[in-house]
């Protein structure tokens, strides 16, 4: 039995296989609308995340399966002090697969140790969120047609932005990938991520404090939120935030085939005037999330289309 806690739990080949399945679902949804008939997905959300939960539920319903669960810990037994281990030991008797979100880091791993059915980590307190990364990967493959030989710019909060770390970890496995790290000094990529997944692998990278200086070199621009509370003082925040806001003016400096990604929700780091630019693919990215979750559920349940 497989559990998916971290994106690196999946090999490059398995990711390829998931992307192929997701592509086929996108092309022929009718082939898949019964494959999970009589199967149940439990969504155990110990903290609310409506978008992620709906994406999982929509994925399971689209496969002909059913869903049950809870959407915040106030309505669950954990409010009465029940452990993750006990909750999962019980729920895994009611469902065929579990998607779990929890505010504590490592909670889905604990769940996987006590579950009789596959567990998918749907986010553990900003630690891992493998289906977000799979969504990012499907977006890249769809929009760019490949993972190899891409220059990936990551912009904004690279220090605390977990989607960024996971995407670097996942993309560092493909040949010819280069990273451009665009952030203020205060929000630079942590040195252990840079060491383990960029330097140790001999991957080409550069760092820049200015988006304008490097945007013209990028195949992909991955934007993240620069949050006020990450700064020591208001002046630093106000001084820096505009540097990392994407506007139509900045888009003029970008290549005609560059794509803009964002894990959403955004606050103001991408001006809404960019939304109509065909290179802005963050809403398509959210749409892909459902299909990649369908592919992952199928893989973990071991079901196939006829």
């Amino acid at each position: 039995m497989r559990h998916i806690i971290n994106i690196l739990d999946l090999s490059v080949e398995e990711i390829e296989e998931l992307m192929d399945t997701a592509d086929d679902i996108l092309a022929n949804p009718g082939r898949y609308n019964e494959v999970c008939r009589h199967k149940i997905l439990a969504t155990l959300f110990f903290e609310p995340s409506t978008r992620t939960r709906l994406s999982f539920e929509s994925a399971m319903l689209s496969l002909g399966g059913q869903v049950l669960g809870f959407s915040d810990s106030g309505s669950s037994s954990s409010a009465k002090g029940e452990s993750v281990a006990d909750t999962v030991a019980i729920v895994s008797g009611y469902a065929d697969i579990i998607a779990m979100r929890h505010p504590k880091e490592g909670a889905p791993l604990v769940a996987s140790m006590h579950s009789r059915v596959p567990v998918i980590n749907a986010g553990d307190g900003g630690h891992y969120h493998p289906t977000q990364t799979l969504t990012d990967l499907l977006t890249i493959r769809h929009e760019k047609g490949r993972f190899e030989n891409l220059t990936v710019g990551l912009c904004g909060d690279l220090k605390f932005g977990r989607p960024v770390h996971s995407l670097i970890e996942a993309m560092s496995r493909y040949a010819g990938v280069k990273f451009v790290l665009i952030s203020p000094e205060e929000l630079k990529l942590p040195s252990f991520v840079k060491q383990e997944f960029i330097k140790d692998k001999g991957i080409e990278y550069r760092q820049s404090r200015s988006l304008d200086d490097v945007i013209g070199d990028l195949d992909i621009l991955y934007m993240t939120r620069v949050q006020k509370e990450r700064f020591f003082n208001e002046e630093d925040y106000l001084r820096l935030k505009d540097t990392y806001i994407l506007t139509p003016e900045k888009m003029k400096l970008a290549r005609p085939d560059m794509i803009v990604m964002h894990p959403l929700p955004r606050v103001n780091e991408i001006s809404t005037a960019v939304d109509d630019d065909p290179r802005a693919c963050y809403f398509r990215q959210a749409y892909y999330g459902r299909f990649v979750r369908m592919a992952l559920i199928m893989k973990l349940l071991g079901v196939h289309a006829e």
Partner: protein
Amino acid sequence: MNIDSIKNGFVIDHITAGRAMQLYRMLGLDCLQCCVAVIQNVPSAKMGKKDIIKVDSSIDINLELIGFFSPNATVNVIREGRLIDKKHIDPPERLENIIRCKNPRCITTTEQEIKHIFVRSHSGEYRCLYCETRAN
């Protein structure tokens, strides 16, 4: 202070200088009734300075704990006044319920009866199995 004074017991040698008292407490040697000697800052050709612990009792000790606190340590086992075994302690791959995770966001801070597990990485440091926070 010499090895002949131990009849049945062991000597933990080549302890990283300054770590002996911590190890003494972690191993629970402070609860023993027998003779225990903690010798600190002994000149050593190899290490410059080292600590030594001698215990005159053949109790079971947690070798993993020694390997974690002092990766170069050796344990000399003494029976009837004679050295019968010299163990080189390798750092353990995994620590179970020896140290706790310091990350306040880690599941180990709230989950009851969870095993506190740390795993040794390629670079030799220990990280929490659940949240990957480094042990210090």
